[in-house]
């Protein structure tokens, strides 16, 4: 135990004295969450929208009011006739035109269903889609306020965005950023720190000491477990206090799963360090074999459902994919153990597999 403490102390010294390591550990989570939260969000704010109001009654005014007062739209003007529609988009600013049918209020009050036409600029299909979803959300709100007046539902909504009604992008990014950061800190940094000892020759001295190889490795990764955990907490706290991302489920459960994911990532890092002889190799291997799949194939940036079939199959062996599913479920849906146990078992399986692999590899190297 004394050995262990002496060694862990040394490891913390390494980390705390290297400004670059510190920057990655503390700066990265903050920078990433701000970057994804503010800059690379796929949500749209203040989209210019034009209104062709053939109704000019209470209902159309209320809906227009709701749209314009929301943060998603801004009023770019009114159209007077359908003829103006074509040229409405030519200003290059207008993203959508909303057309209210005549006598909207009368129809609704008499209990009839009415259609509101949404014409979106689909030169950017993603934006168009998002805007249509926003309007649907607003109309759904409008429905609700009608329900309070105990009227039947009259504006038909086809889709409803569950769990994230305002479609805020940052909700999806938080679990993804946690996954990436934990991979980065736990896997990449441990693999580099172990290979550094090999490169410097200190590993040989350690192996010649009474410390057992297993002890050396565990003592080396302990600080990274602590720091990864700290990073996860930083991201969750920033998500909550800067972007208002809730943790609807059990925080304890979320942190336990994060710990499991950290252990998994560490075993991957150790595995890489048994193969790589130099820090550069370890860095490249981690980037290619861990970071890239974690970013591209985990569903963090690109939805898995919209990937081509072969990539969907491959995404199954990307551990981050399962972690992100669990984290989203706990954070946004408030799911408990009974809904996530399958994914947890998968993660556990990965972790055991990689630990077994690295123990085997490590032994071979010592022969």
């Amino acid at each position, binding site marked *: 135990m004394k050995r262990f403490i002496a060694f862990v102390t040394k490891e913390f010294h390494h980390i705390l004295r290297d400004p670059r390591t510190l920057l990655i550990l503390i700066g990265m989570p903050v920078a990433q969450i701000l970057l994804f939260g503010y800059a690379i969000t796929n949500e749209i704010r203040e989209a210019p929208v034009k209104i062709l109001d053939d109704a000019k009654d209470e209902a159309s005014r209320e809906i227009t009011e709701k749209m314009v007062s929301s943060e998603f739209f801004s009023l770019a003007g009114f159209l007077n006739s359908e003829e103006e529609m074509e040229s409405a988009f030519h200003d290059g600013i207008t993203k959508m035109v909303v057309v209210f049918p005549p006598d909207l209020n009368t129809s609704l009050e008499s209990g009839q269903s009415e259609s509101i036409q949404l014409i979106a600029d689909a030169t950017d299909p993603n934006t168009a889609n998002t805007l249509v979803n926003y309007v649907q959300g607003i109309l759904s709100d409008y429905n609700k306020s009608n329900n309070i007046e105990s009227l039947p539902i009259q504006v038909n909504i086809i889709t409803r965005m569950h769990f994230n009604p305002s479609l805020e992008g940052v909700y999806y990014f938080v679990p993804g950023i946690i996954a990436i950061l934990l991979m980065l800190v736990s896997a990449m940094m441990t693999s580099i720190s172990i290979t550094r000892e090999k490169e410097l020759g200190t590993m*040989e001295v350690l192996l010649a000491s*009474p410390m057992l190889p297993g002890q050396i490795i565990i003592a080396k990764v302990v600080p990274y477990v602590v720091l990864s955990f700290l990073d996860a907490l930083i991201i969750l706290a920033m998500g909550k206090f800067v972007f208002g991302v809730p943790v609807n489920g059990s925080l304890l459960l979320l942190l336990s799963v994060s710990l499991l994911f950290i252990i998994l990532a560490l075993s991957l890092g150790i595995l890489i360090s048994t193969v790589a002889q130099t820090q550069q190799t370890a860095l490249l291997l981690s980037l290619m074999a861990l970071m890239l799949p974690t970013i591209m194939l985990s569903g963090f940036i690109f939805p898995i459902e919209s990937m081509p079939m072969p990539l969907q199959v491959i995404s199954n062996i990307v551990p981050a994919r399962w972690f992100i599913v669990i984290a989203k479920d706990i954070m946004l849906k408030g799911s408990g153990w009974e809904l996530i146990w399958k994914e947890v078992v998968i993660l556990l399986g990965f972790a055991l597999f990689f630990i077994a692999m690295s123990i085997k590899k490590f032994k071979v190297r010592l*022969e």
Partner: protein
Amino acid sequence: MAKEPIVTVRNLVKAFGSFRAVDNISFDVFPGEIFGFLGANGAGKSTAIKMLIGLWRPSSGQATIAGFDIYRDTEKIKKSIGYMSQKFSLYTDLTIRENIRLFGGIYGLDRASIKRKTEELLDQLQMQKYATAMIHDLPLGWKQKLAFSVAMIHEPKIIFLDEPTGGVDPITRRQFWELIYAAAAQGTTIFVTTHYMDEAEYCDRISMMVNGKIAGLGTPDELKTGFDSSDMDEVFIKIAREGEVMI
């Protein structure tokens, strides 16, 4: 020397595929002796040391260190030896004091002993003033002396030095050897590899390794007489040439 040997090596072999890095070597080292392990680069010195200290498993042959078998008792061996590797082996981003504390801790010394040892060591090396300096700010000669003292921190019976003086100027080498002598005078057995032939003269006995085999073994004088040479350089060149003829 009628004492029991502290190191016994019999027919030790390390093969990598068909290449025999260490090819059937046998020798004894006695307590308190400075045993020089000489040879050109790639002659198999480091491979032999790595087997003796329990880092690598031999392909065949027998050896005991301080009475412990190198196959079965590697953990016990590791406790009774010190090792200083070819590459500089202290942590450069830790201070002198922190390095001493770390290795003291790794070798299982208690807090009081570590403290006592630290002061002793700093006095002995006259480095008190620099105790909180980072290792990477120190001159190479200092680092080497410090690495040696740190490898001796748990007062091992035998210390293995793998080319400890590589790349160091002659004056520092001289000083380094004074440390070795001091340790030997206190009864520590020194097992040192080098390819500096002048250092060979400092050893009690030397073994000359050529192509994985031991080509000569004895005191410096015995070797010089045996190979009819005036100094160790000549001995080495003659032995190396025979080695080539043997191939």
